[in-house]
């Protein structure tokens, strides 16, 4: 995590590669649904990808396939050039419905994310015969103290100090999603996959969380794959916006968002922002009219 980050996006190898992926849902007693039709997408390290498109165009399906939560029929999905064969702590997922464990406090929820993760430890080993000591590097589970400290760090990051011992039912929607985001970051995945994470929140909370997420991304440059149905949100956050079309789900267009960071809510007023937003909105709306026909 501490190593120097490569902030030049273009030359590096893709972190995640989705190539010619097809996915059809077999529906018992109905027509099969082609959720993804020949979808290809490369996600580079430190990118912030936003995916927009009419509902039912396969955004969630694509995310689940990258997360390893669902199999695809044909094509190739790799992370760091390894094929995705299942979920793993290298890909953190943040769900619209928060997915917090209701029986765990905020702290326990965040620590649970790290429960199965292994890290390198420098351990002092004593040779039984000679009594000499030497250091050894071991790949093992995190200690309770390490988990505690990391949980503290991320609770602070999402401004939830004082709520460590609250249960999810005692938190507002925005606070719950902040816990989920803290949990996602604490696992230190290579990429965060977010499925309409702010979709259930009111406008003010949403704006607040967008700013928080931007600030975090601007410092850590964690690769993000962010699904939203809100074009404005997509343009505000993304380095690239992927527009998907429905029936069958395809990548329709990829738009580079060349607005400089740091961005904030004021960015939404800038002429170039509005230009990009209107252009993408127009494309999405036209597809929506197509689908309605």
């Amino acid at each position, binding site marked *: 995590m501490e190593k120097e980050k490569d902030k030049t996006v273009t030359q590096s190898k893709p972190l995640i590669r989705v190539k010619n992926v097809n996915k059809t849902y077999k529906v018992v007693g109905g027509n099969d649904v082609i959720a993804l039709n020949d979808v290809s997408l490369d996600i580079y390290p430190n990118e912030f990808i936003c995916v927009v498109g009419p509902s039912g165009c396969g955004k969630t399906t694509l995310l689940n396939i990258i*997360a390893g*939560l669902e199999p695809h029929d044909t094509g190739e999905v790799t992370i760091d050039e390894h094929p995705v064969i*299942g*979920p*793993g*702590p290298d*890909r*953190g*997922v943040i*769900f619209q*419905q928060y*997915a917090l*464990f*209701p*029986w*765990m406090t905020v702290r326990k929820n965040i620590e*649970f*994310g*790290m*429960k*199965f*993760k292994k890290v390198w430890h420098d351990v002092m080993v004593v040779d039984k015969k000679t009594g000499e000591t030497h250091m050894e590097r071991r790949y093992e589970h995190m200690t309770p103290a390490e988990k505690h400290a990391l949980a503290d760090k991320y609770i602070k990051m999402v401004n939830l100090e004082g709520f460590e011992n609250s*249960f*999810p*039912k005692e938190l507002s929607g925005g606070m719950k999603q902040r816990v989920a985001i803290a949990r996602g970051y604490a*696992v230190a995945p290579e990429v965060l996959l977010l499925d309409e994470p702010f979709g259930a929140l009111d406008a003010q909370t949403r704006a607040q969380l967008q700013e928080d997420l931007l600030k975090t991304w601007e410092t850590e440059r964690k690769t993000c794959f962010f699904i939203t149905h809100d074009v404005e949100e997509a343009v505000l956050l993304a380095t690239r916006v992927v527009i998907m079309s429905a029936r069958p789900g395809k990548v329709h267009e990829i738009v580079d968002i060349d607005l400089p960071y740091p961005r904030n809510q004021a960015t939404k007023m800038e002429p170039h922002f509005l230009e990009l937003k209107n252009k993408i909105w127009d494309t999405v709306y036209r597809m929506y009219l197509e689908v309605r026909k």
Partner: protein
Amino acid sequence: MDEQEKALTGEIKMRKLKDFSDGNPTTRNILNVSSIFVGVLVWFLITLIPSINTFLASPQQVISALGQEVQAGRYFKDIWASLQRVLVGFIVALACAIPVSFLMGWYPKVRALIDPWIQFFRTIPPIALIPLVILAMGLSEMAKYTIIFIAVFLVSVVTIYQGIREVDKTLVKAAYTFGARDINIFLSVMIPAAFPFILVAARLGIATALTTLIASEMTGATYGLGARITSAQQFMNVSVVLLGIITIGIIGFILDRVLLFVEKKLTKWK
């Protein structure tokens, strides 16, 4: 004064809308207690009518029956015998229902094998099984445990299994993304998520155990509230029948409150 002002000063009453809450706790307690009091009063009054008193004993008669039963040394032996049957049947049944319902929830093949039997036996009243149980086990204690066991087991399996099916699958997905293996999903997600349903099953199970008690003691018993009720009925001793019924009701109420208390303590997060 306009209408709005009149409403605020109470001159015009605001419409009261139903909100389906429990209402004022004091009012609720007063109503609870007075309902019981009025009920007993009505019971007392109607048993003054001789034709009714022949089949319904009066409160005084039940109290004197209580005195006689205690004097004869039967009352607490009855309670103990029944309580023991209820608790043994209930605990063993719940202890078996938990792993069975988890196996059904976890393995679709186990579910496919067990489900038809559960569905079949669910609708059969335990009383119908008595002849078979007696033939198999005689008039032993085991026969009584078995009847209660079957009834509680079925009701618990159905409840817990339903709960396991309803566990939020997003939680399972989330745990997988952290690198959980199947065993971790089972121990860290399924069990805690299904835990409230185990407690619900326990409360339903206790109620079922008590309602099956009379049937279970029909397999011949010297002591026991169910056996006492059945034999008193044969001697037309209605006050002892009523005493038995009231005692079972009170035991059920206490056991339910205990479980409710445990539930509140253990599932604060709900």
